[in-house]
């Protein structure tokens, strides 16, 4: 059984980067200064992940304004515009307007990370479609936007892709649309579908036959009772809550993982339950350390 831990998603900006971006908006500094601070933030994030002993590095998507914007800007036919609340949070994304046939113009560049395994995060095709209010189908977005991006990152050395899916848990009827869309994606590297910030209990069984290598569940909103025995796909149980500032108790995580292992899933890798950007950076650092401790605990209890 593979036992790993890693942190997909958007990582919070440091207070220094927050200030730099505020200054940029107010005309007190330039793009170059912001970019230099982004590089400093990213270097620190790499150190934090390495110290925590995480198995794959993430660049933290520090330049991403939200989950959908970079792909919308890199694609023909898509424009990111209306400000829209992200689920039940106090953070907003720009919903995607469809103004033509969506097609990735130029893949997003691979992050500049030290040699070794690294993971990428993308929105799931169903999430992309919902961010566009259904104006573009999940299948077309998978084939024409996400697939070339996954291929490009795989060629650049990416070892794992997490598809963040915030909407399916709230719209379980979308499972067939999601399944058809995922079938359009290449799998040059393992793909995971992570149900972020949602109760995945109602769709978990239906997720078992999705064409992905792992399913992520938010166990801060999903009851452990909803996980069937011998679940055939590897699980990414979220044991770090990105929506609270409290630092997780390692004993509670160990106890939880033990109970989860009693259900004999195909495999486990520990993750946060969504973007860590929902806590300030100082707290996110502590949470990554807690994730690393949980990984050590996972090995022990397994």
């Amino acid at each position, binding site marked *: 059984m593979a036992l790993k831990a890693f942190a997909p998603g958007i990582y919070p900006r440091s207070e220094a980067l927050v200030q730099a971006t505020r200054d940029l908006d107010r005309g007190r500094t330039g793009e170059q200064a912001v970019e230099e601070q982004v590089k400093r933030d990213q270097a620190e994030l790499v150190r934090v992940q390495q110290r925590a002993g995480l198995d794959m590095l993430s660049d933290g998507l520090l330049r991403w304004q939200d989950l959908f914007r970079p792909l919308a800007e890199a694609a023909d036919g898509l424009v990111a515009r209306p400000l829209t609340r992200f689920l039940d949070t106090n953070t907003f994304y720009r919903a995607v307007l469809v103004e033509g046939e969506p097609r990735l113009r130029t893949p997003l560049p691979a992050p500049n990370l030290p040699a070794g395994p690294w993971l990428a995060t993308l929105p799931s095709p169903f999430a992309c479609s919902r961010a566009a209010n259904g104006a573009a189908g999940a299948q077309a977005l998978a084939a024409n936007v996400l697939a070339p991006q996954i291929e490009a990152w795989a060629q650049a050395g990416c070892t794992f892709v997490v598809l963040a899916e915030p909407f399916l848990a709230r719209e379980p009827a979308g499972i067939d649309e999601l399944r058809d869309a995922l079938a359009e994606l290449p799998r040059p590297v393992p793909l995971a579908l992570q149900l972020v910030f949602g109760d995945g209990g109602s769709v978990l069984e239906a997720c078992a036959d999705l064409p992905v290598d792992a399913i992520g569940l938010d166990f801060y909103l999903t009851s452990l009772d909803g996980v069937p025995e011998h679940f055939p796909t590897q699980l990414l149980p979220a044991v770090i*809550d990105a929506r609270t500032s409290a630092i997780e108790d390692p004993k509670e995580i160990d106890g939880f993982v033990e109970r989860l292992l009693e259900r004999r899933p195909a495999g486990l890798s520990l993750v946060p339950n969504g973007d860590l950007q929902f*806590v300030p950076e100082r707290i996110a650092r502590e949470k990554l350390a807690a994730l690393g401790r949980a990984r050590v605990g996972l090995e022990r209890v397994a």
Partner: protein
Amino acid sequence: MSVRFVTREIGSLGKPPWRVKSFAGRPLEESDLEEARRWGRELQVDGHEELVEKLEQGSADLTEIDDWAARYAIALLERTGLDVVYDGEQRRTEMYDHVAAHARGFEPRGTVRSFDNKYYAKAAVVAEPSVDAPQDVDELRFVQEHTDRPVKVPLTGAYTMVDWSYDEHYAREGALGGSAERRYDARLRFVRDVAGNVIAPNVHGLVEAGADWIQIDEPAATTKPDEVPLVVEGFNAAVGDVDAKKSMHICFSDYSRLWPPVLELEDCLELQLEFANRDSRELGTGDDDRPGFVDTLRLFKEFGYPGVGLGVLDIHSDFVEPAELVRDRILYAVDVLGDPGRIQVNPDCGLRTRSWDVVYEKLTNMVAGTRLAEDVLNRAHAAPATQPSAS
């Protein structure tokens, strides 16, 4: 009896640059002093020359600057012709921090992104919240001393405080893999404690000091639709037993989620909601002309909720609504509800993101448009043959 609507603001105004820079410890520029001179003159703020002189000399302390900012804001709201005023929340940092920083049990945690390069500060509840004394009584007394008009005190609601805080206390145990019932119970206890231990003491102090209208602000009301009953619980626990007018302000939310739980609000005069943000800027009083109002007003009609504070100004735009547009929005609401007595008039929300020039024009037009609507309704009443169907 003739129709007369009550006009009022919702809460916050932007802070003058001389107030912002003074509190940030940044030097004032001539343009900041000119702002103080110009608005002091235009609003006829008594003794404003003294403020300008002190700003020039750097001799005003921060308390004095706060007092002057409040006086300017009161004067601005009065000059636009509003019936009910306050101080534009000039002394408050912002609606969440103002409460969290005062109460025991909250600790600041840092900055979180709202969108793009915009951020907000967030605190965590680490112990049962409480306060030593009412928070806003001095603020109210100052307003009462500087206006003859009725005042309405805006207060952040318990549910919004809960929803915008991290929870390191109530939900600490058993969160991982826990049940929905357990999570709801933790939120309920948090709401009850904020309402009873933080908001209610302030409300009681304000009412004892003469406040006769308390507005509870709950912008987070429908963020988690299943928790709207907690919004109601928080309101009733905070203000249910006080002898004053009580209302609730909600904005930028899915209002369809409010009913039926809001029918349990105790003695709540009205819901003041944002409408203009989602409306057309074209004139007209038909359903197609007023897309921002139609669905929500029908909820008011269907459920019979007594009063609506009609948001007729978009606070996210510098577009100055013509008086005729305000008029038509009000007339449309009267038409749908069939009773002008159930309607009062306000902006969508606090106007803190707009310049004072824009605020002045918007509010002045809001009052003028309200008078136009009254004229139409009163003329129709006086001449039954041309009476519109609603009046």
